[in-house]
């Protein structure tokens, strides 16, 4: 496989393009997708770039196929990615589950628009946050990251590939139409370390493809390496063979969850602004966090000690961070472009310790700072 392509330097690009460049910088050499607004710029840039950098771009017949092709390409030894928006994300859920069950490293970007259904094809939304967590059937853990700017879209895409290799799990980049289409300065560093795939070291004979290392993640033998392994979406044992017992299922599902949840330090990122003396914390992510910051500044001007907790990692939810903040403040306001999804998690973690409010909008436009300010004032009033 070819060398990766790092476009080092300072650029003016939108969030979608930054995701595409982040993928190339991380060593992604396979991208399969189906066109959808507001994701198309990711696919279009990679359709242009990958054939010039030795990789493969393929436009599939639908998102079911795109996700399946990504899983196949990852087993073929590549770093593989797809990108979509709501309607396509729904179609990807089936093979996202296959990637989780077979422990296939891969990256999926969802440039969120307003839903349900075709909803608002060209306008912003954040309504797929719970789908990112629970959209495929069965119980599982995966990692989701939420960039608030094109620069962060680049950085988090690079990290997403590294995390997907380290944990052998799909990593979702849950961005949104505004970040995807917003043009800003993006600085691509000279050096980007490429996360290697964890390869088996022992002999082919007796190799157990699903025998985990100490961190519960097994090394991965890819196609053509001579291990002749069997990979199945059925519940399987360490040999990779189907085992339909409740015990085998318990062992597997528990390990798939534990390998992620036991290492939160590896993927939990949040940002706190004006939080040192804050009495009310605004919790937000993606584009909404930028509006929320404006509202925090507005509140400060009015003498309200507000601060912002920005979630960079959405899943697994940063329980400890949110709990810690809840212990320091007298109220919390969740701001998001849906009718209250991540706020359920805040509620779950805070357990009634402080009053909570939510500033919700189903999408189509971003919040106005004054709407968020009203939420801050509301929660201050119930102290």
């Amino acid at each position, binding site marked *: 496989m070819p060398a990766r392509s790092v476009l080092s330097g300072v650029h003016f690009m939108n969030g979608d393009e930054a995701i595409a460049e982040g993928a190339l910088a991380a060593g992604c050499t396979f991208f399969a997708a189906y066109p959808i607004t507001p994701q198309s710029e990711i696919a279009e840039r990679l359709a242009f770039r990958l054939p010039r950098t030795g990789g493969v771009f393929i436009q599939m017949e639908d998102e079911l*196929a795109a996700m399946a092709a990504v899983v196949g390409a990852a087993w073929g030894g590549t770093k593989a990615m797809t990108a979509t928006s709501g309607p396509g994300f729904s179609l990807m859920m089936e093979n996202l589950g296959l990637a989780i069950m077979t422990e296939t490293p891969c990256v999926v970007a969802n440039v969120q628009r307003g839903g349900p259904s075709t909803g608002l094809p060209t306008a912003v939304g954040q309504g797929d946050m719970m789908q990112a967590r629970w959209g495929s059937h069965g119980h599982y853990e995966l990692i989701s990251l939420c960039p608030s700017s094109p620069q962060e879209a680049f950085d988090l895409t690079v990290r997403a590939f590294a995390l997907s290799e380290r944990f052998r799990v799909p990593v979702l980049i849950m961005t949104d139409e505004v970040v995807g289409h917003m043009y800003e300065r993006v600085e691509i560093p000279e050096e980007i370390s490429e996360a290697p795939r964890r390869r088996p070291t022992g002999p082919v004979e007796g190799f157990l493809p699903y025998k985990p290392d100490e961190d519960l993640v097994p090394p991965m033998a890819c196609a053509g390496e001579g291990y002749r392994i069997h990979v199945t979406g059925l519940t399987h044992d360490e040999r990779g063979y189907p085992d339909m017992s409740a015990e085998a299922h318990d062992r597997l599902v528990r390990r798939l969850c534990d390998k992620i949840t036991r290492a939160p330090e590896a993927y939990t990122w949040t940002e706190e602004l004006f939080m040192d003396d804050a009495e009310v914390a605004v919790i937000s992510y993606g584009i909404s966090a930028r509006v929320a910051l404006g509202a925090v500044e507005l509140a400060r001007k009015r003498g309200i000690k507000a601060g912002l907790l920005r979630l960079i990692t959405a899943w697994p939810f940063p329980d400890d961070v949110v709990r810690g903040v809840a212990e320091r403040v007298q109220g919390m306001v969740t701001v998001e472009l849906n009718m209250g999804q991540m706020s359920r998690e805040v509620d779950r973690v805070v357990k009634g310790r402080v009053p909570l409010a939510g500033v919700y909008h189903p999408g189509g436009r971003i919040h106005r700072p004054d709407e968020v300010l009203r939420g801050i004032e509301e929660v201050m009033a119930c102290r």
Partner: protein
Amino acid sequence: MPVKAKRQVPPPEVVQGQHPMEKYLRADRIPHIWCAGCGLGTVLASFLYAVDDLGVDPDGIAVISGIGCTGRVAGYVRMDSYHTTHGRALPFATGLKLAQPDMKAVVFSGDGDLFAIGGNHFIHAARRNLDINVICVNNLNYGMTGGQAGPTTPLGGRCTTSPYGNFEHPFNLVHVAASAGAAYVARWTSLDVRRLQGAIQEMLVRKGFSFLEVIAPCPTNYGRRNKLGDGLDELHHYAEHAVIKHGADLADTEILPGQDFLVGKFIDEEKPTYWEMYQGKVAELEDRRRR
């Protein structure tokens, strides 16, 4: 036909020991789940004999299946083998093949998997002329889930979801494959083991999208509900109606209940594969960059 005399011959002696193709099988997964009299074992054996006769390195073959009785093939071959999701074997194989262009990709799946839930993927994989070999075991119904009607169930066929006889027009798989652009198209019954092996050898050696339809008995479901007898009777029924006509006009290859149908090699043509076209573009770009 020798099979006609089967009732007069004494029951075959049960032979214990290794299958001659055991080196390509996951022996620790045998016994398999397939019913007695099912056509699947024969088709799998034909594939393994083809690999053996050609002397292809099994490390260079990936077997990819969807879900169904046929989909279980991937679980029994001792090669890189992927048991994916229902209908998605072809897009999975597309990704794997483009990541490993030198490997041979063999998709083994059922009629429902490849032509109902996976029908869209099938026509597009054929259109792209990906270098993938598809072996579709057509048992005229959904074996795995208990014998429901599917896209190849003949008119009148009785299935659990066509209790009054199927009244949906079925697909003619070889015609669909040819129309979608497959470079190689053949059909045999699972009785034609030598011809099956020969076809699979041709497919493994040639480039491009190759499609093999194997008409096979499912005595547990389709055979039983349509009073076709046990596995051998059902196989005999198909074999009796199969008429070899290589290069037949695909419009004449429909399978109609109770009538003769055509088997043979229908399409075998050279045309650039997806990968060759892709590499061609890459070379063009490289050329332009150098100039």
